[in-house]
């Protein structure tokens, strides 16, 4: 095994380092402390979502409904405060809704054995539709005076570092602890690596899968609160955007194989940094929107191809509906 071979994490890190170096040399105003903080701040929410997605992808699943969990419960909280409820009560309701949503996802996937791709595609639509039809008055839920103070979750700085970067850091630590230090984390890896073997060895795989989706939804809701605080509103229409692809891009690019059981928080951080550097550099260069999409598309394609080379599908355990 002494062959000269990189794994994906190293390749992506090398690409990131190279890109960073090139931008630092050729792009005026890129390598400044302020721009570095802006770069991180701009991808903090994406990074938090990447962590959420990483948990289910490591467990050999995927959660397409993540953006619904980001948009609807925090949107509900903002709407309730606007309608005169207190902030803590509104947040409690939002968290309860998120947990209920995670439980539905988990139940469908673990007990009803619907492939995660289809289950979350449907539940995401359901939750977003529910929000639009019954919960919100308008697509963009505006900030109201009752929320004052809460915007500190996404605005301002602590010790000179923007709050949203702290939020990303806290989320990283919590998820790293969950995945590496707890028994549940070890179970998630085991299930992702080989679900049948995991079940045979006595791991309670169904409850663990449910747990994954509940945690993912909660992190999604947290990301939504940070997002809402940072732009002083909740644009719930974000559900219709391409954000979910960016999240998958971060995860896959960082080297968390879609076939499960591999990767961790470090991969999400690397993937987020690479995306952040690309976006920041392209904005400074004032590249057109279409050009940016083209570049992002090519990078995702390369990442997926590399992923399938480096993490070949496990033919013994792969089943239809897996991705």
């Amino acid at each position: 095994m002494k062959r000269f071979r990189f794994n994906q994490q190293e390749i992506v890190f090398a690409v990131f380092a190279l890109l960073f170096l090139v931008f630092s040399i050729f792009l005026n105003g890129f390598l400044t402390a302020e721009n570095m903080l802006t770069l991180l701040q701009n991808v903090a929410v994406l990074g938090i979502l990447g962590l959420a997605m990483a948990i289910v992808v490591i467990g050999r699943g995927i959660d397409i409904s993540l953006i619904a969990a980001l948009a609807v419960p925090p949107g509900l909280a903002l709407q309730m405060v606007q309608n005169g409820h207190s902030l803590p009560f509104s947040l409690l309701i939002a968290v309860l809704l998120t947990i209920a949503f995670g439980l539905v996802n988990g139940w469908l996937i673990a007990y009803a054995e619907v492939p995660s791709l289809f289950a979350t595609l449907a539940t995401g639509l359901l939750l977003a539709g529910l929000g639009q039809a019954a919960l919100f008055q308008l697509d963009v839920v505006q900030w109201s005076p009752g929320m004052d103070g809460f915007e500190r979750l996404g605005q301002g700085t602590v010790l000179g570092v923007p709050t949203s970067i702290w939020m990303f850091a806290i989320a990283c630590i919590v998820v790293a602890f969950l995945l590496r230090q707890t028994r549940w984390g070890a179970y998630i890896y085991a299930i992702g690596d080989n679900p049948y073997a995991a079940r045979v060895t006595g791991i309670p795989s169904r409850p663990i899968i449910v747990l994954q989706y509940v945690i993912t939804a909660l992190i999604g809701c947290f990301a939504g609160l940070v997002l809402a605080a940072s732009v002083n509103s909740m644009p719930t229409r974000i559900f219709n955007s391409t954000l979910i692809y960016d999240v998958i891009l971060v995860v896959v690019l960082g080297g968390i194989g879609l076939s499960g059981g591999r990767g961790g928080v470090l991969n999400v951080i690397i993937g987020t940094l690479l995306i952040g550097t690309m976006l920041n550099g392209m904005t400074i260069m004032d590249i057109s929107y279409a050009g940016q999409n083209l570049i992002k598309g090519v990078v995702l394609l390369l990442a997926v191809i590399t992923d399938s080379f480096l993490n070949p599908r496990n033919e013994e355990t792969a089943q239809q509906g897996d991705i």
Partner: protein
Amino acid sequence: MKTFGNPTRATLAALALATLTGPALAQQGLDEPFQKPFKEALAGKTVAYVPVAMNFDLTEGWYAGLKKELEPFGVKFVIRDANWNTNAGAQAVTSLISEKPAVIVVHNPDVQTYAKLLQRAENEGIYVIQINMGSAYRSSAFVGANWVEIGERQTEGVVKACEGKSNKIAIIQGALSAAASAYTLKGVENVLAKHPEIKVVSSQAADWDAAKAKAITQTVLKQNPDLCGIVGFWDGMDIGTAAAVKEAGLTGKVFLATSGGGERKGACELVKSGAFDLNMSYDVPTQAAQMAGTIKWLLSSGAKPGSIKGSEYTTLIPITKENADSPMSCWNLSDLKK
């Protein structure tokens, strides 16, 4: 006084006239001959409304305004929500053509998609009113904002604020595929052509997305802390632009011009808080009232659909700190729905 040389005679004449006609007026009313045909022309007619999506201030405002004006006359008001899906919208218009409502009020997602369908609808005898976003086909009426003018007036505001400063400005566009965004950009270009001293340091599309607008603005402000103005294309998105300006501590130093429908929370409140310096409003309730007036006129005129065509461009309200407090500058969706 020359004709009625004698005042007593004039008074007598007037009295005589009054005694002749007075009792007649008091005893039986005079039938106004046009109100009955007007009522008949409206009662039982169907008006169909196809917005690009419901659930945002503009389309909710138009809906509430039209409903309020038309339903008391017995007009049936139906809605076909395209929900940001151009195909769904085209299907809705197609099926409406066979359902034959009297009027279709349509909010185009772009210039081309519905154009042929709208022409067919008018050929089939349905009046078509286009709102805020016109198509390539000119129908009975267009009611809406002149996007080029919006772009021009926003940019004029920014250029004025930049006098004596760095002359560096940024442009936050909407979605590239949206004609409203392209028309506004044209207006921006028109003004910039007259002001060669202004330098555009960034012109990017944020996809009507507040988070993207914030990210772009943050980066631009870090690169150009001496930026003197930003032209944003929609207040719903420029909440993010404003948040970035505020975080950089540049509120009041960077002039932020935007536009929108003038809903109180999204426009006046934000101008008052200093987030926006100028918000060009196309006052949705007035647009709704103009549309309703046009519908009443068309239905009662009996004109053949497609035989007369006209435009009603909205008179814009520039909302600044001076008039943000005035109850006339903005409107509340909740009031309109009452």
